[in-house]
């Protein structure tokens, strides 16, 4: 407890990380959107089965997961020295390393770097961190146009929509909707465009080809940053990443400080865990690594912006810090029963789903993000699939506790109820009196409530409608009633007074 009190020293992050309204309100809207439900359901079920299949094929999966977890723990505990090592190696290889305390500072650095090239446009490789800091908006304000080149990001950008998934930000659109967006927003399409995914991919290829060949500046993120060698690593599928990482003259990569891995050899673990967990492939089509500048091959002006934006504050929490191990595979989203029914936009953060529910509140501080730690039934499916064994349910409960502890001094009906209940439960006599009261009270209460205890036609011993706040239960479920005889009364009768 005293430990936690030191946390306010460490500033939290900002950006696209917290929903403007509480999750349950946004979820209510999402749950009612039938097209969205169908799209997300179909996509998540497709990938779930594929992932399970391609993971089952690996007989040392558990050993790989454990190694991945342990490596990330090593990184977390020794981040300062590893960052220094990375900076040194990358600088020696010809890259320029910048440091950004928060989103605004990172945006400023990138904007200035682009300006210095004289270019007013950049091509972008899909990167979560640049979405987190809302870099595109910052560039736009500076008169610089950012072109997203990943197919899903392109769809979202053309539709001026929001990302809803870590790996496939356009997962909430189906092929027909994507076809409509392309037809509307891509100048070089005509009515011959069909909704066949191959045709849509071809349209994206034609649309972006000139941009790749002519744009002088690219912006990327990185999946991994190797401390020993100063190497950055990007995994992708389409080849848009390779285009951005190789063809432009200037390459600016924004990298969260947690992306470090100690050595090049350590990639042997993550290059096995990540593709199978994310796109359910033995290996993704393309992985690129680059170390500073290579003469005559690729960008000759290479910049790396190392970003904090709430990561150090997250690291300070010894339970919550495991969230920084995330390699953004999205497996936890794809198996999450809550995500499956709401999609990602309801979370109001670039990081949705189970990982979003633990990382977003930590980056912003729980006070700014109270509802997300409760956006889970704690079913644990996410923990089971996580390739780096992040115990998401544990962190969720821990963040709930942080929120509750942080609001200790403010009055709350929930806390009063929880305290009363705990007070009752911690004494046998109080507990037994409460059981008795519950049993004797429910009859009359039930009588008062619409004059019926058992809903007509409903099963015996249940209630159909209860007043607020219990109405949140009876909105869709009949409520059970206390039994005529408690277990302990039965025991006394049949086995005599207990010890």
């Amino acid at each position, binding site marked *: 407890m005293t430990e936690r009190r030191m946390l306010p020293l460490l500033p939290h992050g900002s950006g696209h990380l917290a929903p403007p309204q509480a999750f349950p309100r946004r979820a209510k809207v999402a749950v009612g959107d039938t097209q969205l439900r169908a799209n997300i359901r179909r996509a998540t079920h497709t990938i779930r089965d594929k992932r399970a299949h391609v993971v089952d094929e690996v007989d040392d999966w558990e050993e790989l997961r454990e190694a991945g977890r342990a490596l990330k723990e090593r990184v977390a505990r020794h981040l300062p020295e590893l960052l220094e090592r990375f900076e040194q190696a990358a600088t020696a290889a010809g890259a320029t390393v910048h440091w950004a305390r928060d989103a605004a500072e990172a945006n400023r650095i990138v904007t200035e770097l682009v300006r210095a090239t004289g270019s007013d446009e950049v091509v972008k490789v899909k990167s979560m961190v640049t979405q987190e800091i809302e870099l595109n908006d910052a560039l736009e304000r500076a008169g610089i146009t950012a072109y997203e080149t990943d197919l899903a990001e392109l769809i979202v950008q053309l539709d001026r929509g929001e990302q809803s998934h870590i790996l496939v930000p356009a997962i909430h659109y189906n092929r027909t909707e994507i076809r409509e967006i392309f037809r509307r927003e891509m100048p070089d399409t005509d009515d011959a465009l069909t909704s066949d995914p191959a045709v849509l991919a071809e349209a994206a290829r034609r649309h972006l080809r000139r941009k790749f060949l002519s744009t002088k500046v690219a912006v990327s993120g990185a999946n991994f940053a190797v401390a020993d060698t100063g190497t950055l690593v990007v995994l992708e599928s389409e080849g848009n990443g390779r285009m951005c990482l190789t063809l432009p003259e200037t390459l600016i990569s924004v990298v969260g400080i947690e992306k470090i891995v100690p050595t090049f050899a350590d990639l042997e673990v993550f290059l096995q865990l990540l593709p199978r967990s994310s796109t359910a492939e033995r290996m993704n089509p393309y992985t690129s690594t680059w170390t500073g500048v290579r003469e005559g091959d690729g960008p000759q002006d290479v910049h790396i912006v190392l970003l904090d934006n709430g990561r150090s504050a997250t690291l300070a929490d010894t339970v919550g810090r495991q969230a920084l191990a995330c390699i953004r595979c999205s497996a936890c989203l794809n198996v999450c029963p809550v995500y499956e029914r709401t999609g990602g936009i309801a979370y109001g953060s670039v990081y949705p789903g189970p990982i979003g529910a633990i990382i977003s509140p930590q980056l912003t501080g729980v006070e700014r993000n109270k509802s997300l730690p409760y956006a889970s039934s704690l079913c644990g499916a996410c923990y089971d699939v996580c390739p780096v064994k992040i115990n998401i349910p544990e962190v969720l409960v821990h963040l709930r506790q942080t929120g509750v502890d942080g609001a200790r001094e403010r009055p709350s009906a929930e*806390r009063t109820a929880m305290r009363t209940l705990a007070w009752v439960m911690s004494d046998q006599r109080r507990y037994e009196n409460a059981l008795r009261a519950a049993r004797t009270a429910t009859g009359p209460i*039930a009588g008062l409530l619409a004059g019926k205890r058992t809903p007509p036609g409903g099963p015996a*011993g249940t209630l159909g409608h209860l007043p607020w*706040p219990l109405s949140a239960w009876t909105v869709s479920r009949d409520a059970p009633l206390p039994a005529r005889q408690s277990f302990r009364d039965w025991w006394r009768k049949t086995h005599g007074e207990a010890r």
Partner: protein
Amino acid sequence: MRIGLFVTCVNDLMYPGTGQAVVTILERLGHTVEFPAAQTCCGQMHANSGYRAEALPLVRRFVDVFEGYEAVVAPSGSCVAMVRDSYPRLAEGDAALSARVAELAPRVYELSELLVDVLGVTELGAVFPHRVTYHTTCHGLRMLRLGDRPERLLRNVSGIDLVELPAADECCGFGGTFAVKNPDVSTAMLADKVRHVLDTDAEVLAAADNSCLAHISGGLGRLRTGVRSVHYAEILAATDGTLPPRTEPAPAAPTATPTD
């Protein structure tokens, strides 16, 4: 073996039949069951909602009440998971309590663990000639790793027609306070669970947790599906092929007047 029964607060008040079934099964096997009356609640709702300070006295209480037993059994996957998985964390910072928790927690079993692993029985002489489907609740599945223990017990019930529940491993949407904090998502999850149950054509839905069952049966009841939900212990206790009638609430009920 001296077995302490932790019946759980939900079962004590709402589902006494489940506790009675556990006693019946264990006594039929020749074991002595004790019900320490000082027991109350494991503190799960408090802990999972973030009220650690409120949960802590309940952890102490549980340890006080049960540490003298060779084995403790509870007919609830989530309460056992609470003790085995969350107690060590809650007790952190209190060395004495931590040590007591570490000593006790491994001896706290979900019913099927006690029967299959500790007592080594899977055949209980039960008779239940009905079509039953089994929902693997999340805490039993992923925290306790119960595996197919409950189904193995059920498969040996004479006359039973045990049918597989599609997507049995998917959460039903209960999640404790999740059901009321996020009622829309919870309901959407419940809808799928209900659909899968109906797809099996089962008369009875069984599970290892009455709290999840309260939620699912609340949905089955609301839709007037006619499917009954019971804790699987009650099926294992049945020797005459029937379940005891659903318990009626305590006081004499005012006659139902359909006013709306």
